[in-house]
Structures are given as structure tokens and as C-alpha cells.
């Protein structure tokens, strides 16, 4: 049966699959994770701030994002972002946003909700005594956050943040619905062009598995190291 399959099509398209597809996927994952963690931390701080309006807006935002399927959110932002851009800049016409930027904004905003939940737990894991000590030393809120709370929260939550990044890496495959050329998009374009679905999809699965499996293995090792330091 397998003799009917031609895995040569995989080798022939490797430069395209990795040079374009994987680069898109990895760049998108890295940038969205970085920006998502920053935004997520800000949201977590807003939720824990105790400022009435701010607290509630942050909560509603997180809950809303978490109750929607990513596919729907991708559609939403792909069509909506140019209008938001026009609104922000006050332009009369929708602002042109490229496919990559649009995907980046979508994933940043979506994953920030998930990262914020992790960071919230991280901030809460730092004992109240430490913030009290910081303010006793005359530190402002921002100083104590930046110098005392957040560094520890990040370190405690690093394994979880990285695990969520692996999830994000897998989730980026959903830009397929917009016909963008991420790794899976590239694989499926070749698959459809050459009628070699079985080979291409199996290959894509193997690559994703190899990347995610090794990444989560590393995260687990890191986790045990972080645990010892504490």
C-alpha cells in the first residue's frame, strides 16, 4: 500500500516548507508569545489592581476571549483590525494591515488572555509580605512590581508560560483558514497542487510532533530545575 506513496514530493518541497512556511510559523509564535506575555502581564496587573472599572474590563476581556473558539477570533480580527486601525489613527479609510501583522495582532490579543491567567497566578504566588516590605522601603507600586514581584512571578511561571507557547505554536496552524502560508499552509498547498495529501499531511504531523515533543521535554527539565532553585 505504502508503495503507492511518493515521499519524494516532500524532499522536493523542503525549501518551501521550511524556508517560507516554518519561518512564518516560528516568527509568528515567537512574536505573539513575547507580546502576549507583556500584554497578559498588564491585564493580570489590571485584574489584581482593585481599581473598579479597570478590574472589570480586564476580567470581561479575559473571559470573553476564553469563551470563544480561536477560529472565530481569527475571522473577527482579520476583518476588523483595519477598521480598528482607522479608528485609532483617526483615518477616514480603513488602514491597510498585512496578513502577517493581522495574524500577529490576533494571536497576541487572544493568547494574552491565557497568559494573563498564568501571570495572575504567578503574581498571587508572591507573598503579600514582600510587597509590604517593598512599600516599607519606599518603593512605588511600579517599582515594587518591576523589581520584586514580576521577576519572581516570571521565574515561577516560566514552565507554564513556555507550555502555553507550545500550545500557541500548534494554534498558529489555524491561519490555514485564511490561506496564509504557515508551515501547515505550505504543506497543504503542495499537497493540493501535487495531489499528495497523505505524504504531506503525515510529514507535517511528524514535524509538529518532533518540535512539540522535544520542546515540552525541555520544558519539563527546566521545570525540575526551577523547582530545585526555589
Amino acid at each position, binding site marked *: 500500500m505504502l508503495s503507492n506513496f511518493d515521499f519524494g514530493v516532500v524532499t522536493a518541497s523542503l525549501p*518551501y516548507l521550511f524556508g*517560507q512556511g516554518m519561518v512564518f510559523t516560528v516568527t509568528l509564535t515567537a512574536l505573539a508569545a513575547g507580546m502576549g506575555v507583556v500584554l497578559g502581564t498588564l491585564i493580570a496587573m489590571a485584574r489584581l489592581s482593585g481599581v473598579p472599572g479597570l478590574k472589570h474590563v480586564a476580567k470581561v476581556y479575559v473571559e470573553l476571549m476564553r469563551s470563544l473558539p480561536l477560529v472565530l477570533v481569527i475571522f473577527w480580527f*482579520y*476583518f*476588523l*483590525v*483595519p*477598521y480598528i486601525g*482607522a479608528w485609532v489613527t483617526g483615518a477616514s*479609510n*480603513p*488602514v*491597510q*494591515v*498585512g*496578513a502577517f501583522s*493581522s495574524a500577529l495582532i490576533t494571536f497576541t490579543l487572544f493568547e494574552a488572555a491565557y497568559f494573563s491567567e498564568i501571570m495572575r497566578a504567578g503574581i498571587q504566588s508572591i507573598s503579600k509580605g514582600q510587597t509590604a516590605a517593598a512599600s516599607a522601603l519606599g518603593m512605588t507600586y511600579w517599582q515594587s512590581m518591576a523589581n520584586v514581584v514580576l521577576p519572581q512571578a516570571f521565574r515561577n511561571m516560566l514552565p507554564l508560560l513556555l507550555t502555553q507557547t507550545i500550545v500557541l505554536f500548534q494554534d498558529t496552524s489555524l491561519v*490555514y*483558514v*485564511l*490561506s*496564509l*502560508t504557515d508551515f501547515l499552509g*505550505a504543506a497543504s*498547498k503542495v499537497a*493540493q*497542487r501535487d*495531489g499528495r*495529501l497523505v505524504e504531506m499531511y503525515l510529514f507535517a504531523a511528524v514535524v509538529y510532533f518532533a518540535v512539540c515533543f522535544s520542546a515540552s521535554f525541555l520544558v519539563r527539565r527546566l521545570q525540575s530545575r526551577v523547582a530545585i532553585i526555589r
Partner: protein
Amino acid sequence: MQFGIARRGLAVALGLGLSLPGISARAEDLTGTLKKVKDTGAITIGYRDSSVPFSYLDGDQKPVGYAMEICLKIADAVKTHLKLDKMEVKLNPVTSATRIPLIANGTIDLECGSTTNNPDRQKQATFTNTHFLTATRYVSKKDKKLDKIDDLKGRTVVSTSGTTNIKQINEANTERKMGLTILPAKDHAEAFLMVETGRADAFVMDDVLLASLVAGSKTPDAYTISSEPLSKPEPYGIMLRKDDAQFKAVADAATKKLYESPEGKALYTKWFEQPIPPRNINLKLPMSEAMQKQLKSPSDSPDPAAY
């Protein structure tokens, strides 16, 4: 090479055309897309993955095709019209489902592919002169022995989401009580794949796209296209943003010039009657009478009866 000459020819043509009243806009009163292109120095073309031979990815995964060439001419015309030394042409992939929102929200300025120009869509976007005419039919495997619309009764059919064709088959399904299961696919390649792998019995689409999908398949002899059409031949046009008269005037003038010149005929021959990339397939689709008429006196009407 061929391209360079063609571009210069068009630039001359447009230089002459500038004295026409419709497109004599001066720089200070530019609006809409033209103003944006002038300000940003870039124009964005939306292309399709698998609308062979209109707009599709070749062997190097670069968008090429009949409609792509027309769009590049329009882009050149814009550049000349705005007297820009340099203008970047950006490319953005679109699907049947995303093209109209992306035109509306400004992600793309020109949609180059196989978009049917009809009154419904005129409410959302506008179209320049028609570049092709095609009717809705379906493709199926020969061994299923399907030929008429009614042969599909009770079967599973696939069509591309966001197209007029899926709307038509849905309407036919209701009117004729056909009991179809209609699957929406993301693009034409995926839809054809459903028929190829036996996931669907037939793929309902514009006949020209079906013909090129069959010609490009591994076993072209295994497929047949229905003889009974589901619709009259409908016009394809390059889609532009609505309410943007200045931009449309430039696009209309550029396409009119192109279609009326011998180059229009040559472009048709290049993509429909000669081997095309990536696998040097010849679609062998001689120009229909309606199409010849269209090239002689270009029209942008959405009404099939106008052709």
C-alpha cells in the same frame, strides 16, 4: 522581457489617455485608493491560490495568471497616472470567503481572480471591465455517470464557500427539492480534492475553473463536466472598492485599452490556448463569441444578458 515591452506600450497608451475627462484628476484632489497609493507608494493585489488560469500559484509558489497580468497592467496605469517613480506592488492571498471583506476593509486594493460580477456584489464592491464569461456546471468522475443537474439528486456535492456557485446550488437544491448534501470547501483545490478522493460526488463551479482543474489533475480522462449548465454565462471582473470613482476610472481606462488592443487577444491566447505553468498544461479553450464581443467593446455590466 516580454513584460517590459508591454509595460512601456501601456505607459504610452495611458499617457495619451490622460487627456480623457474621466481621469484628468490632479494630484491635489485625489481621493480614496489613488490618494492612499500616492501617500504610501504601494498598491496591494489580492490573489487566489488555485483559480487556474486566472490567479494561482505556480511551481515556485508565486502568484501568476491571466487576471494577475491584467492587474499588473492596472497597477502600472496607476503608477503612470500618479507620476510615481517607484511604486511597490504588494501581494496578499485571499480566498473566496475573505475577498469581499478584505476589499472593504482596505487590506487589498485590487482583487485579481475569478470573481463573478453580479448585482448582489455591486452593493459591496465595484468591478472594472469584464475579463471572462463563464457558466456554472459541475465536474464528477466519469464512472459515476452524472451529466444533468437532476442526476445529482440525493448526492453529496461540494462547492467553494463564498462563491455565487454555492449560492446557486443551494437555491437549486431548495427549488427542485434535490435532497443534496452541500459541503463548503475553502478553495477550489480543496473542493476538487473532495471529488478526487471520493468525499463528494460532484464539484459545482464555473466551468472554466473546472476545465482547468481537470486538465491539471493526475488523471484528466477520469472526469467529466456536466452538459447542462446551472446558470447563464456570467461575467468575471477585477474587484475594486466601492464608491471610488477616480480609481475605477483609471482601472477602466487601462483595461479597456488593453482589451481593445491586440495585446488583449494575445493575453487570452497565452493563458487559455497555450501551455501554462507549472506543468505546461494547455487548457485549449478557444475564445467564445461573447468573449470576442467583450474584447471589442469592453463592458463592466453585471447583467449576463448584456453579453
